[in-house]
């Protein structure tokens, strides 16, 4: 290593242009990561953040532009080339093998020679290493049994073990509770302090400002802002992301609707769990027409089981559950549970038809219906014949929501409905839910983002260890947080 190399940027993407068909995903984007820094990459859904990172990681090849790593021009033909150059990526969706243990997945991520040495004896080593990194993991746990925050940890450990000196983190905190996110950020800070570098893709302005040295904002494939983090502020970044000073507030305040008859009534309800014995807790709750009820809970406290039981996806263990039909369910993971990415938008809409919709499918009517939904819900797509995978995350969520609401449900159950969405898209989702409530539906939702729950609900329920506790009316963030953690 010469002095020149040491001073060279860890990663330099210069004048990158990338087309998807006739859609320009990136236009003349230049993006530079200095060694020893954390660089935040901000932007709305579909702004091109992931595309840019996939180019840096060798998953996509740009039409124009060059890539330099540590001052050397490189040409990546596959992620393997990128890994060899010291670039590691932590994807939004975990890429570990679900049926294998943590230790086995880490072994797979290691270089071949390293793996041969460690094979079999890696259990203790993985435990120590993960603790050393500040990301403790149980090496013998099967990945499928891990909560999503643990899967995320595993992804990071894998990337570091694979020899990455530059980590690309694709919205790592989107699925984490605030305390978990803070933990993760401190790990990334430590990693960077050792002379490595990292790129943090995020929607959260505060997170970017608090942790990164530098900030770049993309908007519709163009760089609209680039500066040191301490030389800018949230308003400036929000303007760069959204274009003008966007309306970040909610449309209607809480409590404007008059609650009607109860549409969800649960008594003596005992939940089934994915594995092991049923929950020992007995649940009673009721949600009325016109109400938006938010569930605040730290991951793994039974909120997922509760929502899925009420939605009718999982049968209850025992007790009585009275839910008015039709019920719309908006699952957390839109790519594996909400949409079939290989199918067209029309086909995905037809998948959501009510069970009593008849045994034949009228495809031309379905296509007209889909076109109408795309228009009304402002889904950006080529048309009803486009495949679901061609949509950005935000547009996929709009489609999921449009499909659910088009059935005119009496009851709407939503898991993390704004997950991974930018501020404007998240606000749009909640505006739709509020409209449905005004029209007389009962809405019950959970979000890992506590602020979202507090801001969007008429009434907040807290779940802790399988128990449902009402938050006192007008409770503030601290009170609810203490209830969630059992520290009152």
């Amino acid at each position, binding site marked *: 290593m010469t002095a020149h190399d040491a001073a060279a940027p860890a990663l330099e993407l210069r004048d990158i242009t990338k087309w*998807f*068909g*006739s*859609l*320009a*995903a990136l236009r003349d984007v230049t993006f530079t990561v200095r060694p020893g820094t954390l660089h935040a990459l901000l932007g709305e859904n579909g702004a091109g953040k*992931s*595309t840019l990172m*996939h180019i840096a990681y060798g*998953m*996509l090849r740009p039409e124009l532009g060059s890539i330099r790593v540590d001052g050397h021009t490189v040409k990546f033909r596959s992620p393997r080339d990128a890994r060899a150059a010291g670039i590691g990526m932590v994807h939004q969706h975990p890429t570990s093998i679900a049926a294998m243990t943590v230790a086995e997945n880490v072994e797979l991520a290691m270089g071949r020679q390293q793996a041969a040495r460690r094979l079999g004896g890696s259990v203790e080593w993985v435990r120590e290493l993960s603790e050393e990194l500040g990301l403790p993991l149980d090496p013998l746990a099967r990945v499928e049994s891990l909560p999503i925050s643990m899967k995320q940890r595993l992804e990071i450990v894998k990337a570091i073990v694979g020899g990455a000196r530059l980590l690309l983190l694709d919205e790592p905190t989107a699925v984490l509770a605030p305390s978990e996110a803070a933990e993760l950020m401190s790990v990334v800070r430590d990693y960077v302090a050792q002379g490595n570098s990292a790129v943090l893709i995020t929607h959260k302005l505060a997170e970017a400002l608090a942790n990164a040295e530098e900030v770049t904002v993309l908007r519709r494939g163009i760089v609209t802002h680039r500066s040191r983090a301490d030389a800018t502020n949230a308003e400036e970044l929000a303007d760069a992301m959204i274009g003008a000073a966007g309306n970040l507030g909610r449309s209607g305040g809480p409590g404007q609707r008059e609650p009607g008859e109860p549409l969800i009534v649960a008594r003596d309800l005992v939940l089934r769990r994915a594995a092991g014995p049923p929950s020992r807790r007995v649940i009673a709750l009721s949600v009325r027409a016109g109400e938006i009820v938010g569930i605040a809970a730290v991951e793994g406290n039974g909120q997922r089981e509760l929502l899925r039981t009420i939605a*009718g*996806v999982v049968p209850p263990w025992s007790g009585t559950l009275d839910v008015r039909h039709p019920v719309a*369910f908006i*699952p957390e993971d839109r790519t*594996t*549970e*909400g*949409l*079939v*990415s*290989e*199918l067209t938008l029309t*086909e995905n809409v*037809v*998948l*959501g*038809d009510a*069970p009593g*919709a*008849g*045994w*034949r*499918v009228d495809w031309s009517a379905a296509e007209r219906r889909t076109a109408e939904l795309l228009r009304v819900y402002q889904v*950006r*797509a*080529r*048309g*009803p*014949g486009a495949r679901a*995978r*061609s949509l950005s995350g935000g547009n996929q969520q709009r489609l999921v929501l449009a*499909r659910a609401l088009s059935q005119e449900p009496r009851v709407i159950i939503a898991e993390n409905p704004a997950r991974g969405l930018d501020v404007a898209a998240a606000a749009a989702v909640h505006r739709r839910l509020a409209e449905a409530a005004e029209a007389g539906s009962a809405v019950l939702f959970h979000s890992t983002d506590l602020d979202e729950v507090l801001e969007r609900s008429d009434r907040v329920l807290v779940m802790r260890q399988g128990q449902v506790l009402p938050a006192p009316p007008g409770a503030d963030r601290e009170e609810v947080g203490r209830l969630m953690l059992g520290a009152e």
Partner: protein
Amino acid sequence: MAKKVLTRIPKEEREESAFRRRLRVARHTLLPVVLIVVTTLLVLGAALSLAGYDAGLAGAALWRGAFGSWDAITSATLVRATPLIILALGFALALRGGALNIGGEGQFYAGAIAAAAVAAHVASLPAPMAIGATWVAAFAAGVIWVSVPVLLKLRFGVLEAISTLLMNFVAEALVSWMVQGPLQEPTHIYPQSATLPASAVLPVLPGTRLHLGFGLALVLAGVLWFVFNKTRWGFQLRAASYEPRVVEIISRRNVGAMLAIALLVSGGISALAGATEVGGVSRALYQNLSPGYGFTAIAVALLARLRPGAIILSGVFFGALEAGSAAMQRDAGVPAVIVYVVEAVVIITLLLIEARGWRRREALAGA
């Protein structure tokens, strides 16, 4: 009104015209098939030349044997295409839902046994009823035969690709026992069943050997086309092959039950091929009744991309190869087993094209 809206939508978001879409679909579906057929014929020619045969002579014999005359078309090509089409339809039904039914050969024999056994008891019935009885029996036998792998899959998660394959060997052993035991012809000399009574023999197109089974194949293709393209169940079955959780959570369907039904009916359809072969061609149950129809049918279905209409065409293509290869052996001295080489080339070329398409999709999906 619509026009006004259109002008404001940027080009990349405008919907493609119906014509362009049709062109794109044609490029993605038709082109690979043409490519495969041409590659296959080229490989066949090259292999024959390398092996020292006269490729031109062999090719001419192949063509004559398959399409050279009205008789070649009806009595050779279409007769051989019949079981291939029916078996391929059965295979396609299961694979639409993502289940691999490799047991067509065994289900064919289950149907053949059932048809031969029932035929002996319905001699006195009028022909339509007698034939109907053999078909119903064959369908039921196929369902029962495939129910073993289905139960194993539902209860213990045994891969149906393996269990259906293994059931083939059981079926062959069963036929062998049947023609030397319970179903052996009355004189107990030959390893075959009694000849079918006239009422159970399928009618033929006058002057040819083309039997009613071909009609059944066409009807079945029509029915499956309707199920796949027009019914909710058929559509959900396909969706489940991509992402079963979506069908369970969003469509509220029991995907396990849907797959079980698809596999059971798939077995029943495959068994009908055995019934039409016994009733229309051999007119008695023999060992080795099928020259591997159950496996060739997989290539037929894959080449047709599981589309019922295309299965008829690709079934005729393979039927022609089988018919032509017999003529090739007779006239050019080329061993008829060369068809298996052709089948292998088709399947491998197909898999290559699929793999390429898959990789490109992966790259796009990452965007």
